[in-house]
């Protein structure tokens, strides 16, 4: 078969070090770029809602990254840039929603559920322990059982 050597050749070509280039630097200023990455990975892309602006290749995400990059260059702080985004797109852009009246259930809910679940667990365990502590037979019942066990059943059948 000619296919195998061909594939091997292709593979060898693909792995040739000349093709393995370093990723080109995305910006002249690596510090600003690192800030951009950190900031944009905390912001939600509104077009593809389960991706961050850092991850997404949607056009809006690209635009917003450029916008943030420019804002960094003009010397705005991270908080100011986040405020800028929230003012236009709402809290929804934040992957970490702020604690507010409207988001209280979101923040407290899981702990509440945990407390309720823990409460039920403790309640059930206590009840089970009480059951276990109860003597299974009273003294009279014990004596009766003893006597029944020790009597010869053949004698009773008269």
């Amino acid at each position, binding site marked *: 078969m000619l296919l195998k050597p061909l594939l091997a050749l292709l593979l060898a070509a693909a792995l040739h070090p000349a093709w393995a280039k370093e990723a080109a630097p995305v910006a002249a200023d690596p510090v600003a770029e690192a800030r951009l990455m950190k900031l944009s990975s905390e912001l939600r892309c509104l077009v593809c809602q389960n991706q961050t602006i850092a991850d997404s290749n949607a056009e809006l995400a690209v*635009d917003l990254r450029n*916008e943030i990059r420019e804002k960094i260059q003009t010397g705005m702080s991270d908080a100011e840039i986040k405020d800028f985004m929230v003012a*236009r797109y*709402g809290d929804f852009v934040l992957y970490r929603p702020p604690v507010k009246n409207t988001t209280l259930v979101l923040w407290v809910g899981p702990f509440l559920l945990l407390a309720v679940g823990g409460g039920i667990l403790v309640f059930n365990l206590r009840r089970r322990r009480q059951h276990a502590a109860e003597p299974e037979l009273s003294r009279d019942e014990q004596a009766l059982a003893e006597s029944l066990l020790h009597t010869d059943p053949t004698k009773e059948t008269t």
Partner: protein
Amino acid sequence: MKAWYLIPLAIFIAMLGFLGVGLKLDPREVPSPLIDKPAPVFRLQTLDSPSRLMSSEEMRGQVWLLNVWASWCAGCREEHPILVEFAKTRTVPIYGLDYKDQPDDARRWLANFGNPYVASVSDPDGRTGIEFGVYGVPETFVIDKAGIIRHKQIGPITPEVLRDTILPLVKKLNAA
């Protein structure tokens, strides 16, 4: 004591309720924080004559619609005939924001499908769109006489939206 056994059922029904409501919600409709806030001011080239700059300040004193559209946007194509018909009623002036578009394409688009806009302005790099929090064209803003955004329609305007939401609001704002 028997009532205890009904609790999981109650939780199940409550969850069904939440999930049912969730089905009807559109996660793409993010409430805009710009409602009841002043509309961002823009000053952009008009589509008809790029030499003329139009400012959003020119619309002060009247209720107007800002429709964000683009020739590449499928939803715009869908809502366009509705806008064209609506514009004929002369109820409220509609201005267009041509979002991230080639002016030539946009002009051809309007020539082909009709032009419901008093004027359209070009936003080639989408910066004005970002100011308005645009993330899914078409979007339409209802802006009152004082330049305050009163409503944002995300996605194509349908006859129902027009009749039930936009028209009553425009009427109310005009009376104010």
